[in-house]
């Protein structure tokens, strides 16, 4: 599917990550180049230990590269301090995890509104926005439930709503169907595809070809290198 919009959201240039600890020196990523454009649906594949998690952590601003440049929405992230990185995570990135990572003590409303809380958005505005994204993912009726009272599929929908709530530049999904049965997993992927069609940029990290099949483009990480770039 040709994209008419060609704005670059993420640009990685000559990016490397080296771990240097008691276990010795280990190069998780070796000189990676990657450009992700607005509205793309990208799949990052690779076996475990390939470096795909490291790549996702760096894109998600949870980790920093040892070498090279990462530009997010035109901002050189190498120049940012911890507080500014936290601000970017809050405003520009939406995370979806394999295990949902909803906080069990909080209601769905409280879970989904969290990025807005850290942005100091007033409670009334937060609630309105949460209702909006919850109806987008189809679980508005669960707004006052706690995560243990809803199904896995609904929990992942809530996590997607939380990732969407701040209108991020990109949504990072790490094995989003890993803890779901096939049917529910397919429903979640359909939801992500649907959101992508509405313009949300999505990067999904997976080893599952059924998941990567939903993407426009797949890149494979192997031994720290980005090996193949396949465009559908």
């Amino acid at each position, binding site marked *: 599917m040709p994209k008419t919009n060609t704005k670059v959201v993420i640009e990685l240039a000559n990016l490397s990550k080296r771990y240097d600890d008691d276990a010795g020196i280990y190069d998780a990523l070796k000189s990676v180049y990657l450009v992700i454009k607005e509205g793309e649906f990208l799949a990052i594949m690779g076996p475990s230990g390939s470096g795909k998690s490291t790549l996702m952590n760096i894109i998600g601003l949870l980790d920093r590269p040892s070498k090279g440049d990462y530009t997010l929405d035109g901002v050189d992230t190498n120049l940012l301090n*911890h507080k500014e990185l936290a601000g970017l995570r*809050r405003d520009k990135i939406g*995370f979806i995890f394999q295990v949902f990572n909803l906080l069990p*003590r909080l209601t769905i409303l409280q879970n989904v509104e969290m990025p807005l809380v850290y942005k100091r958005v007033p409670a009334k505005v937060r609630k309105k926005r949460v209702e909006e994204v919850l109806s987008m993912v189809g679980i508005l009726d669960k707004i006052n439930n706690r995560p243990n009272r809803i199904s896995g599929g609904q929990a992942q929908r809530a996590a997607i709503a*939380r990732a969407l709530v701040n209108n991020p530049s990109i949504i990072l999904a790490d094995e989003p169907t890993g803890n779901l049965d096939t049917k529910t997993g397919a429903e979640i992927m359909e939801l992500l595809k649907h959101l992508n069609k509405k313009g949300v940029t999505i990067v999904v990290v997976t080893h599952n070809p059924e998941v990567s099949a939903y993407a426009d483009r797949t890149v494979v990480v192997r031994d720290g290198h980005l090996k193949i770039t396949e465009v559908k």
Partner: protein
Amino acid sequence: MIWQDIKTALQSIRSAKMRSFLTALGVAIGVFAVLVMVGVGDGVKAQVGGQVSSLGTNVLTIASGKIGQSSTARNGQQQRSAGISLGSSLGASTLTQQDAQTARQTSDVVDVATLSIISSSITRGTLNSSTAFVTATDSSYFSIRSTKLANGNFFTNEDNKNSSYVAVIGSATKDNVFGDQDPIGKTITMRGKEFKIIGVTAKVDGGLSFGAASDDIVYIPTNTATELIGKNDIYRIIVQVNDAGNVASVKSSLDQSIKANHMGSDDFSVLSQEELLGAFDSILNILTTFVVAIAAISLIVGGIGIMNIMLVTVTERTREIGIRKALGATFGDIMGQFMTESIIISLIGGLLGLGLSYIAGFVIKRLTGITPIYSIKALLVAIGVSLFVGVVFGTAPALKAAKKSPIQALKSL
């Protein structure tokens, strides 16, 4: 954000009710101990103060030893410090009947009474009371102190002159020895001699004096006491001045004339009520400070309890911290969340301790007759101290939480 932090903290506290309560209890006990000690200290001070000032502002007390007016020359300046020199105020008295006579002859002096302490137990048949404070004094003592009678009469100057074996007893002594019987005309035995009871003093509310309740007391005439034990060690001489305005001049005149009696030796004190009170206060302050310092240790222990439980909480919630950081929480956001939680636990403890100390106040009043005084200051201290404890002992756990790497935190189970 503070409101959000409080909401989050309350949610977390509610999710571990028992643990939070026990942690708060540690602080509660500390705050309780400090408040009760300060309250009792202030209560005793007020009671002694009330008792001393009930003597009136026109009364001087002459005591053996140097009390509350030591002056030292330092850097060319005269410095005065209040307090009691124990070495000079305990032991054999330096006061004599001659000093009392000198006081009687001083102009502007209305009346003088000597006070001696007799060590004796009281027996009546098989009943025995060793708690009563046996005091030898003059009939004028009752008028100077405006003592009230419940029953009978005081002894008179005639009784003193004749060394009559009569006694006036306090209401508590009467209850101890006679129970519901009317003691007037009956006898008690002290040091092998029978004394006829001629009067019972009215109950003094919550009285506290020299460690013994002032209701558990036996007054006998001075001369009778001298005859009984062969000597008369004067503990105090009470001097009533005709007008409060003349107290200062009488005091300096007594200072000189009694010093002359003592061959120029400065081994006595002439004290106004304020000075007497000052000496009591300074002793009580030292005691109160000491006891409060001990109580404060339990507050530190309570604080350590908070730190301990917060460290556990942070470890248990590592994953939550990772999630919150991934969603955009800054170092400050996480720090604030955990600080708020420890401060709230500590505050709950502080308020609990405040409540407990008020309840204890009633119990202490019932059991000891001392009314602990809790001022608005105590309330502020309780809140302030528990805030302080929450901040001090919450900082390390909150720092630990805020410093966690989001990746490591997300990986934890």
